């Protein structure tokens, strides 16, 4: 079947802005986007640039935006895309500087990975290998070790898009992977560093990273685990951590979220911020938006209290 593929072309050295070029080619059920690109490059336009190597979803080099979604070109079928979107538009990964066509500068990605100490930190070269603990490590890793460093998650990350200092999904999944390694002797140092701005509390839980990862690393879920570990090891004073602990407290008492009480509790130890938030709170009160922070809890709260009590046991 003849298909039309639209490709974003851009060369940072010669072009002012990107342009979209249509290519028509023969494709079949077995044609992947990568095969189509290779065909275009060899038969129509040798100047087309993209990265690829393994053609088998292993090396992680061929990630790009296909119909606006970060995908491995070698693992994406042209027909499936047509079925799903009715068109095929290809461009480079977002959130990273474009060098040429689909080739982006991955420096931001690698910088982030390096930031989290992505290795086993050991103080003694001759530490005995904890063989027994390593046998069960798979259960704790939750697939965080499956990352092929393709960059899809960082490219799709809604938080990184607006806040380049955010260390991002892949690096945090990596941090988690080493944090649970029984050979790692870093203790809470890595976690402590991740409490800062740009760390785990910058994730907005948009779920994009989970959705676009070709290897089911589920970075957001690993971030959640890092958050849980932080709170459990006493790092619970950031507003982000208090968002969780105080949310649980309010629902445990009232059965529901009280949107006036939660911010008060979250900001209790952050007075400056509390004062900053007051004008908005007052506005909400006038629009009938703010429920009373302290009042009779709603119907059903006794049952919820019982559930929480049972849980504590």
């Amino acid at each position: 079947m003849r298909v039309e593929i639209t490709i974003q072309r851009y060369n940072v050295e010669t072009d002012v802005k990107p342009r979209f070029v249509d290519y028509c080619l023969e494709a079949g059920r077995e044609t992947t986007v990568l095969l189509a690109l290779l065909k275009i490059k060899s038969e129509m336009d040798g100047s087309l640039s993209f990265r690829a190597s393994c053609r088998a979803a292993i090396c992680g080099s061929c990630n790009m935006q296909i119909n606006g979604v970060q995908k491995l070109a070698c693992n994406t079928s042209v027909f499936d895309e047509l079925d799903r979107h009715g068109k095929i538009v290809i461009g480079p990964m977002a959130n990273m500087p474009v060098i040429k066509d689909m080739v982006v500068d991955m420096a931001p990605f690698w910088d982030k990975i390096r930031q989290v100490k992505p290795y086993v930190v050991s103080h003694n070269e001759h530490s005995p290998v904890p063989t027994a603990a390593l046998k069960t490590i798979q259960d704790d890793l939750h697939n965080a070790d499956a990352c092929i460093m393709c960059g899809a998650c960082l490219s799709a990350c809604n938080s990184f898009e607006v806040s380049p200092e955010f260390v991002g999904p892949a690096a945090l999944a990596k941090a988690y992977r080493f944090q649970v390694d029984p050979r790692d002797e870093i203790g809470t140092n890595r976690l402590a560093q991740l409490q800062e701005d740009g760390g785990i509390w910058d994730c907005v839980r948009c779920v994009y990273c989970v959705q676009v990862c070709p290897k089911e690393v589920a970075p957001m879920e690993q971030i959640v685990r890092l958050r849980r570990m932080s709170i459990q090891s006493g790092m619970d004073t950031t507003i982000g951590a208090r968002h969780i602990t105080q949310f649980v407290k309010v629902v445990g008492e009232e059965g529901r979220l009280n949107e006036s009480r939660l911010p008060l509790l979250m900001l209790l130890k952050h007075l400056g911020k509390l004062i900053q938030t007051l004008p908005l709170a007052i506005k909400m009160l006038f629009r009938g938006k703010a429920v009373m922070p302290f009042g009779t809890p709603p119907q059903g709260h006794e049952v919820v209290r019982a559930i929480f009590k049972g849980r504590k046991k």
Partner: protein
Amino acid sequence: MKYAYYPGCAAKGATPELHQSTMKVVDRLGIEVVELEAFNCCGAGVISEADPDLAYLLNARTLATAEVLQLDIMTVCGTCQGVLGGANKALQKDEDLRKRINLELKKTTGLSYNGGVKVKHLQWILVKDLGLEALKKHVSHPLTDISIAPFYGCYILRPDSATGFDDWENPVSLEKIIKALGAFPVEYDSRTKCCGFPVFLEKEEIATEMVEKRISDAKDQGGDAMVTPCPLCHMGLDFNQERAEEKHQAKMGASHKLEMPILHLPQLVGLAMGFSSEELGMKRHLVNPAPLIQKIDVM
């Protein structure tokens, strides 16, 4: 068509206009609802950050309550849909999980859940259970020449293993509803992105930057208003718009205004049925919806 109505904390708290407009619309459409009056929070994905099983317990209680009534659940919150619906799918699929949760639930509440309930957002009910043709029959005041930017937010789409109604890469149900109401659905990239609300307090910069980006995107493509199936997105985009407005004007100059009314889905449907903005609780919004209402009234 009859559902157990799960309002969620927001519709019964900070966005009562969502509950108010839902009631108006379902009544007019002949959708029968039994409100779960003693409902509990779904956990919003926050409780599971502390303790996943606790979140399962809370949602299993909700599901078990609806199961006793032999009704499927209707949600009106994208976040509730993602979290309660996701918990439902997990409990239905994973028998070990269901057994473990039921054991504990039974002890504390006497309830247990057998997996017999479906969880559906009002948005999905309008498109599928009711159907767009039936919806159109109730449109007495078509929103002709009004451009509406659909804003899905995160949890009604992602992860798609928990939702599975729209294709998360290319959702269409809000667009279909907007068209059925006679309005024009705006095409823009931001429609499936995050509204910033989850970090509204802790990471103000990030949240505000997101709001500015989403709304200016909708505005650039000609949106008169945005509509969302999630009250948390509503809060993110409405409550935080003043700060985003400052940011926007700093970037673009003082003459560039966002001034984007953010509507709950049933409010938009209600307008096309001829309900007044008072009846739909639109006075409670921080961003004044009056220009939109005037434009609709002139049409």
